[in-house]
């Protein structure tokens, strides 16, 4: 399955509050594409949705490290601000 299709499926599960299923799907996809920015970003937000903030923060930092100028870097910086403020 292409990453875009996986992300679409993940979004479907997230919208329906099926977070466990979404996590399973992303983790499986990450086995094949361990550093994919979109998958990592979706996983980080998912951990926030699951109230697992330390895990989310760790992934956001990892994204920023791998993709300092990536497509998601502004979103990531915004998300990280939340942890710095809390």
């Amino acid at each position, binding site marked *: 399955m292409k990453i875009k299709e996986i992300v679409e499926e993940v979004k479907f599960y997230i919208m329906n509050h099926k*977070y466990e299923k979404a996590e399973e799907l992303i983790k499986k996809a990450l086995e094949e594409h361990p550093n994919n920015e979109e998958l990592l*970003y979706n996983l980080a937000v998912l951990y926030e*949705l699951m109230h697992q903030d330390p895990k989310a923060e760790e992934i956001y930092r990892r994204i920023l490290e791998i993709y300092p100028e990536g497509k998601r870097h502004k979103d990531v910086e915004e998300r990280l601000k939340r942890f710095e403020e809390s």
Partner: protein
Amino acid sequence: MQVAVIGLGRFGFSLADILIENGHEVLVVDKDEKLVQEFENKAREAIVGDATDESLLRSLGPQNLDAVVVAIGDDVEASVLVCISLMDIGARYIIAKAENDRHAKILKKIGIHKVVQPERDSAKAVADHIMHPKLFDRFYIGEDHSIIEIKSPKSFWGKTLMELDLRRKYNVLVIAIKRREPMFDSSGEIKGFKEHLIAPPSPNEQILEHDVLIVLTSNENIKEVERWQ
């Protein structure tokens, strides 16, 4: 609000800072000129002086302030003296920091409205965190009860509060549900989340995956609640 903070030790300094950050008018007093200088541009008034001097306290107009915080911890005598003077002048609401239990007892005896022991309070919070790692947060209600925040266990997901019947089974009351909802940008990509509180939840409210429950419980019941799976 208008608040005076007397004593700019670690506690007083942070308190004044937080109040100013949140847009309140703060008057600060301390003997240490350097500490006071830190507030010169942001406090309504930053005064260098000895707060045991009653005329200085009068000049603050404590009777017109919403609260006066006596954050002198290390000198019990000075703290008590300042508190008594403030009461004599007619301060509306006095909060005083106590260094230890004995100091706290004296402050309560003389009628201080609220006595705080920051070191003890934060130690209590850390101890709670160690003893009850599953609790996100805890607020004490009186001596025997607490409001706790706890993650909903898997066995609750998809069930309504009525179905779970926690009040009868565990003698606890779910007073709110904290839920995080995904947010998407204009192109439909996931962006982040927003958190909202369902309070009070209706009996027909369904618990969704990873909801956090805010529960009123007796303290002796907390261990039982933590065993929910």
